[in-house]
């Protein structure tokens, strides 16, 4: 048997197609292994479907690397944190602590938003207040906002902790009352420009904060270093902010960009690898196991058993796949195992028919008859003579069915019948289509999952094609 | 008058293991009305010789050279279009091995015989079918069998249809590759009688390929014995059968179990050589009972031992 294995392997390896397929497969497997090792298993429910996890990301941002191709570069996303004040002093009975971060604007673009996040605030007597002001590269200062930490509630004892379970988030670039007023004052003070708060909203905060006025009475981005400061005015020296974070929204983010929820698409796409492999292999393995065993049994035993198996396969073959899937999704909810069950239930009949006819053919070969005439038992003949003849075909069918399963899952997810708790490429596509990604031209959201689906399917097709000459001796090149 | 002269015919196939020298320098002549037998075992190159003459080459040809002179014209050098228009089926046609299995199962037998007439001579269908019926009579089939489909005919009948197909454009030479190998013995005799009759009535030249030298004696005027891609003996049937010179021929004749004689059949130990391996000297040397060491050095030439009787063997020549 081993010489045949060696010969089969060398036959398989002979074509470039197989080599390419194996390389692709290794890539897919490597990525899947990496993903399983680095991602938690409940990634889908814990992170992907949890919008709060993605709140700090820019929405519908393109991948970072497109900057290589652009002359007029886009702005990267910046998250700046600090947990220690750069200076602190006592003044007028208050402790003033300066939490500051420095931000460099290097491209000719305006940031898309400014978000402030406060975590782990501690105070001992009275709730402190915080003021935010920005120092620009041209040394102008903008006082932007003031906020007060929540006061103690009755029955609460010091030290008072705030924002430790849930950070406090203030979208400064969306605040509609304090910020426009402050900016209006800033414009008057620094530029002698008179604009009302509504006009400020009209112009857009980012332009004012990060821009300088041009001749045409418009704003142009001011490159340089900006210092974002949060000054805590506290009553006690021990009052502090655990972590202060400024998020300056960019236009590009990450390896594969983000979707409209701000989800990092590279993570979702990565997670799709092991899921695709799992679905592909599980569906094809179980389908092949069922289909092949029924085919072998029917073909070999014949008679009534064969008839029954054939009729059952015929019926199963003719059931409509999609309506049944919709119905099951309705009953059980969109779950991964539902898809698996459907794929398997509709996959096995076609294999039965082919395997059965192969068995019938092999059964009539004289070496099978020779074994009968020697007195071999039916089981021995099945195992030693008949099965090895069809095994290569069954193996190659299994490999051929894998891309089919992957594509089916993608299609089903795309139609909204998938499992929303697990990010798969089909899911990502579905979400994208649903949110107008096609019309809005969000290519980084649509193309990568589509290409990955194709890539994974092609991987298995190439391997199956490479296996063909092994399985079908007439196609062999050697000999 | 020489109808066909083949000189230095070579056909090598390209395979992954190397070039297969299926036809390696084959030479013979054929007169008008003469039947030549190409006799040899499987893999000796007799079918490949036919393919080389008919220019029905596969895609993996490594080398194809030599002269195939039909009435003095080297038709091997014709390009495919010219050969198809002027030679193939019109002047040289072929009955293939297993021809009965290569009849199109969805077309009526008569139509398949008539088709070349419609294609090559632009006859209309009615005329062509009429001619087909005449041919059916010629090969011993009832004319209304033209309406039958191949599955409605027995093996022997299908073979007759294949012969009719080969005769339809009145070729001068017809090549038959193992025409009776898949047929029962009693039908085989009928087909051989048919071929003998056609030979007499039409004065047609034939090349009869077979592995059965006794069958060759049943129709061939001249016999060429092939081994490992070469003709090792060529001459009139009387000479080759009654006075074989090449050891292989002798052994081949001796291996036939005689129905009417009493000689115990002999066998040749070993197997025919692998046509991929390069040859040194005489190819039959490893199995030859009379071989001498020096026979392995140089390939023997074709030596004329009697008038028109040639042998490719060092026993009749001088190795030096």
């Amino acid at each position, binding site marked *: 048997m081993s010489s045949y294995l060696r010969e089969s392997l060398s036959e398989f390896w002979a074509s470039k197609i197989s080599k390419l397929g194996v390389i692709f497969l290794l890539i897919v497997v490597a990525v899947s292994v990496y993903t399983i090792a680095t991602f938690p298993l409940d990634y889908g429910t814990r992170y992907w479907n949890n919008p709060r996890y993605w709140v700090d990301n820019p929405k519908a941002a393109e991948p970072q690397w497109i900057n290589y191709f652009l002359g007029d570069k886009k702005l990267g996303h910046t998250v700046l944190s600090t947990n220690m004040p750069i200076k602190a002093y006592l003044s007028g009975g208050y402790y003033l602590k300066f939490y500051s971060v420095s931000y460099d604007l290097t491209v000719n673009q305006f940031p898309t938003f400014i978000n402030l996040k406060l975590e782990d605030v501690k105070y001992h007597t009275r709730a402190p207040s915080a003021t935010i002001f920005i120092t620009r590269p041209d040394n102008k200062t903008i006082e932007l906002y003031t906020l007060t930490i929540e006061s103690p509630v009755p029955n609460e004892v010091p030290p008072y902790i705030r924002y430790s379970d849930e950070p406090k988030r203030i979208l400064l670039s969306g605040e509609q009352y304090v910020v426009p007023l402050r900016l209006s004052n800033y414009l008057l003070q620094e530029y002698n420009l008179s604009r009302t708060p509504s006009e400020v909203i009209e112009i857009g905060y980012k332009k004012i904060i990060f821009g300088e006025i041009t001749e045409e009475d418009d704003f142009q981005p001011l490159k340089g270093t900006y210092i974002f400061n949060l000054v805590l005015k506290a009553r006690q020296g021990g009052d502090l902010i655990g972590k202060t974070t400024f998020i300056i929204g960019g236009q590009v983010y990450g390896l594969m960009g983000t979707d409209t929820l701000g989800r990092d698409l590279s993570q979702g796409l990565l997670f799709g690898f092991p899921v695709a492999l799992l679905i592909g292999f599980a569906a094809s393995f179980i389908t092949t196991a069922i289909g092949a065993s029924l085919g072998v049994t029917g073909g070999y035993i014949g008679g009534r058993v064969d008839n029954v198996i054939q009729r059952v396969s015929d019926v199963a073959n003719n059931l409509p796949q999609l309506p049944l899937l919709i119905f099951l999704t309705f009953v059980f909810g969109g779950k991964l195992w539902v898809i698996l069950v459907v794929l398997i239930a509709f996959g096995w009949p076609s294999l039965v028919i082919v395997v059965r006819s192969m068995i019938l053919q092999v059964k009539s070969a004289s070496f099978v*008859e020779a074994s009968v005439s020697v007195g071999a038992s039916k089981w021995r003949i099945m195992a030693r003579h008949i099965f090895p003849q069809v095994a290569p075909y069954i193996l190659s069918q299994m490999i051929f069915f894998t891309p089919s399963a992957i594509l089916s899952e993608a299609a089903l997810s795309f139609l909204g019948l998938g499992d929303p708790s697990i990010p798969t490429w089909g899911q990502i596509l579905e979400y994208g289509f649903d949110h107008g990604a096609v019309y809005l031209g969000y290519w980084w959201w649509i193309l990568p999952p589509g290409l990955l689906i194709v890539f994974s399917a092609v991987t298995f097709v190439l391997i199956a094609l490479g296996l063909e000459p092994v399985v079908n001796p007439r196609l062999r090149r050697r000999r | 008058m020489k109808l066909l002269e083949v000189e230095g015919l070579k056909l090598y196939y390209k395979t992954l293991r190397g070039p297969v020298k299926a036809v390696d320098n084959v030479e013979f002549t054929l007169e008008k009305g003469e039947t030549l037998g190409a006799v040899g075992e499987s893999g000796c190159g007799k079918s490949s010789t036919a393919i080389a003459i008919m220019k029905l080459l596969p895609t993996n040809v490594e080398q194809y050279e030599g002269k195939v002179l039909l009435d003095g014209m080297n038709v091997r050098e014709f390009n495919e279009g010219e050969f198809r228009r002027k030679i193939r089926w019109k002047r040289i046609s072929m009955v293939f091995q297993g021809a009965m299995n290569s009849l199109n199962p969805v077309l009526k037998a008569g139509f398949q015989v008539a088709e070349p007439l419609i294609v090559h001579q632009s006859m209309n269908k009615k005329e062509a079918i009429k001619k087909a019926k005449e041919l059916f009579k010629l090969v011993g089939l009832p004319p209304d069998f033209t309406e039958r489909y191949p599955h409605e005919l027995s093996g022997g009948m299908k073979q007759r249809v294949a012969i009719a197909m080969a005769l339809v454009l009145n070729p001068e030479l017809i090549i038959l590759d193992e025409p009776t190998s898949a047929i029962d013995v009693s039908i085989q005799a009928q087909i051989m009688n048919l071929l003998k009759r056609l030979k007499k009535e039409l004065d047609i030249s034939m090349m009869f390929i077979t592995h059965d030298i006794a069958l060759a004696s049943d129709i061939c005027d001249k016999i060429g014995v092939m081994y490992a891609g070469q003709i090792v003996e060529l001459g009139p049937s009387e000479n080759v059968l009654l006075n074989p010179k090449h050891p292989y021929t002798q052994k081949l004749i001796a291996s036939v179990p005689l129905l009417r004689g009493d000689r115990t059949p002999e066998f040749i130990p070993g197997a025919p050589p692998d046509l991929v391996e390069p040859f040194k000297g005489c190819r039959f040397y490893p199995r030859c009972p009379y071989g001498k060491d020096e026979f392995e050095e140089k390939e023997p030439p074709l030596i004329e031992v009697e008038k028109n009787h040639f042998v490719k063997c060092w026993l009749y020549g001088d190795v030096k």
Partner: protein
Amino acid sequence: MDLQNIRTYFYVRKGFFRTLTVRAVDGVSLKIDQGEIVAIVGESGSGKTTLGRTALKLEKPVSGKIIFEGRDITNIKGDIKWFRRKAQMIFQDPFMSLNPYMTVKQIIEEPIVVHNFDEKERKRRILKALSDVRLLPSDEFLPKYPHMLSGGQRQRVGIARSLVLEPTLLVADEPISMIDASSRAGILFLFGEIQKKYDLGVMYITHDIATAKYVSVNIAVMYAGKIVEYGPTIEVLKNPLHPYTTALMEAVPDPDPQNRFRFRKVVPGEPPNPISPPTGCRFHPRCPYTTETCKKEEPLLKEISGRRIACHYAEKIAK
């Protein structure tokens, strides 16, 4: 082996409701003694292969008896492994009769594995079988796969496989028809040696009447499922009495350059369809001596000059 009036039919379904009966073997009786080789000669449709398979219980006869070593095994239920040990088959196709995924060792070993011989006994038998078929040295051949061997060698492996259980009866189904002409005599010679050495009873099935002459002691000529002539091989071939036997012999040429100037005496027509054989004597449509009786009455096997012939006019034709 004693086959008594065996009829083996096959049933073919045509369309939804019709079933056609293929009368492959239609009333054949034959005895093979220990040490005797009987040749069964016939063309396609004669039923010779089916007869051989029925004798080995690979096909079930519709009626008749199969008696082996005195025991009636026709309807024996349950395990017939003891029979399988004693009666073996040699197949026609040297390639298809060997499992391409098994080595020579595994192929030859299979029968003795199935019959549970111990390790030492296995080795002894395999080596003996290989030396009987002259496939030595054994180390060279045992690990090879069928596709590495020539046709003649493969057929010898098949013969070795059939010998390894030390049978008493062999059914050889056209064992040399798919082998090169120059190697055939070698296999035949080997076959004869083995048969003599082990005193085997052999049913030698062939369409080539000339080889029957060198192999068998008795010959049975079959036509359309029945035996038409049976007798000592040399006698039958020297002096055939049934018109079909005569026709069969006429059809086979010996290598003679004068052959091409003579038309052979052939009988017209083709062997009949086993589904609907002719009435009366099945050979009557093709026989040059047909009469009305031949069309209506089926001739039974009669004893004439030490032979059995199924023909109404055998004696007359002989004279």
